[in-house]
């Protein structure tokens, strides 16, 4: 939104177009910032288990985030990444779409959940809270034990905190 849509939205406005472009140039998606700008290669974190990863649509197609999370996760000791065969297929969130066209949205996320379960991973990761909310919501409804988290939680060693859709223990 900030990177590609703001400059378009404010195009032609003498003052705001420049400000939008300036903001866009300084705005980065977290994982691409870590991997491409900050040049993080060593994360000093251990997590034992198998994860799978969903490529969020705007991250993947607008911001070209594909390789960065995989590189960062590759630096986590003990972690195995099992690729989701349909990683690049939309999960069905889509903003207002998920409420307005709920039947279609639920069908899409149901297919996604089936593919996720098919990987036998312990944890599902992604980099977009909309998708995470949607996929976690469906997996929980199905009674799945798969933990759903933002990639940053693993990279920051915060997996002791409750995962998305889970409450604090005790």
């Amino acid at each position, binding site marked *: 939104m900030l990177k590609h849509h703001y400059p378009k939205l404010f195009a032609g406005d003498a003052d705001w177009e420049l400000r939008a472009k300036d903001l866009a140039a300084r705005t980065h998606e977290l994982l691409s910032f870590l991997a491409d700008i900050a040049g993080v290669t060593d994360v000093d974190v251990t997590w034992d288990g198998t994860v799978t990863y969903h490529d969020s649509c*705007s991250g993947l197609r607008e911001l070209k985030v594909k390789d960065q999370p995989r590189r960062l996760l590759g630096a986590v000791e003990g972690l195995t990444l099992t690729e989701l065969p349909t990683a690049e297929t939309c999960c069905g969130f889509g903003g207002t*779409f998920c*409420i307005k*066209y*709920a039947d279609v949205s639920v069908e899409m996320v149901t297919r996604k959940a089936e593919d996720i379960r098919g990987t036998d991973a312990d944890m599902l990761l992604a980099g977009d809270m909309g998708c995470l909310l949607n996929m976690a*919501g469906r997996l929980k409804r199905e009674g799945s034990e798969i933990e759903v988290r933002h990639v940053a939680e693993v990279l920051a060693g915060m997996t002791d905190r409750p995962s*998305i859709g889970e409450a*604090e223990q005790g």
Partner: protein
Amino acid sequence: MQSEAHNFKTAAKGAIADPNLQQALGNLETGFVAARARAAAGLDEFEAMRDEAVALKNHILANLDYYLARFEERVVAQGGTVHFCATAEEARQTILGLCRDNGARTVTKGKSMVAEEIALNPFLEANGIEPIETDLGEYIIQLAEEPPSHIIGPAVHKTKDQVSDLFHEHHGKYGKTERLTEPEDLVNEAREILRQKYFDADVGITGANFLIAETGSTIIVTNEGNGDLTQMLTSAHVVISSIDKVVPTLEDVSTILRVLARSATGQEMSAYTTLSTGPKRAEDLDGPGGFHVVLLDNGRSDLLGTNKQEMLRCIRCGACMNHCPVYLAVGGHTYGWVYPGPIGAALDPHFLGIEEAHHLPGASTFCGRCQEVCPMRIPLPEIMRHWREDAFEKKVGATPERLGIRAWAFLARRPRLYRLATRIAMRLLGRAGSVRGGRFESLPLASGWTRGRDMPAPEGRTFMDRWAAGER
């Protein structure tokens, strides 16, 4: 066809619950998507060719009047006629006139989406002329009395078993009483029945993928060769097409042909690429007696110079629908009019009005996969977004949604209030959620969400709160 686009939501529900449709859509996804990916990866210059094709189409659209005039000149020079038609009604009447001039009682038809756009078949039938579809997919849906559900595979929504049943039911009158189940046997039976129809027909109607300004030729690409028979054996060949299909030269069209089949079916070329140039000449052994090109505008020229002009680059390959997760969940009929999927969502409101078709650009997650695979790099999500803006301005669609957008816009322009609202919402939902195991099974105002999903509860404090408190 009568639009059912307003009925999208109900139709979607039915489509998701239809096991035959879901099976057929599953085959489509695995077949075409994998084939296109292989074809694109197999040609180093594929992306460069897409760029070239886009530049070419942009040039054509900037000089459309010139190339259309040139095309007409060349058609006339070869003894043919071009009929420019501003509206669907004009095109129907023109074609009916041509059929009557040739004393036609039956006409054979190659696949044409423009013919669907002007609802030609029911019109001809109402005027006592029997149209016979010769493309296998079109033939199947003609028997089933259904519209096409995909622009290059009109019967993709049918399973093989359903086709077996249809043929068994309709082919009895030709003495075919056995219910066939093997695809090859089904194809052969249809071929045998259609063969006689080609000889019986008085006029052959085909579409055109391209019109060549340099030569006055029309081009169709098929995988069955039915288009050739349709036009060769009749007293007149009527081409029904639209003004956006013109291309300057044969050299130019070869660029587009190379991206077309790869994007559509993953083939390098379609099995048949048929060029039609004028009627039969004295020295020709065969060919149609007359050659008529009916060129439909139907509002296309109104798109020129607008924020939706790029739609006119479309070459009708169908890649957008093959890759669309919404299309693959609900199928083509759910869209309710001629052009389904992303291209329909971007195009149908232009033909039907946003009031009738507002669901089509609405029912997209803007995942962007259509734009990614579109050989013509049409920014389909952006065009759908323009339609949503039109709908909002014209107050089309559900009132709660518009009020919601207004309320959100009100908050978004008042950062302090926005932060306060999110802080309160987070606290309330977080507290309520923590006693429910971290998620809600139902929530007021969000039954659309909770019907099929839990809603994870927020946890902790907002980012802005924590930032303000110096946590960094």
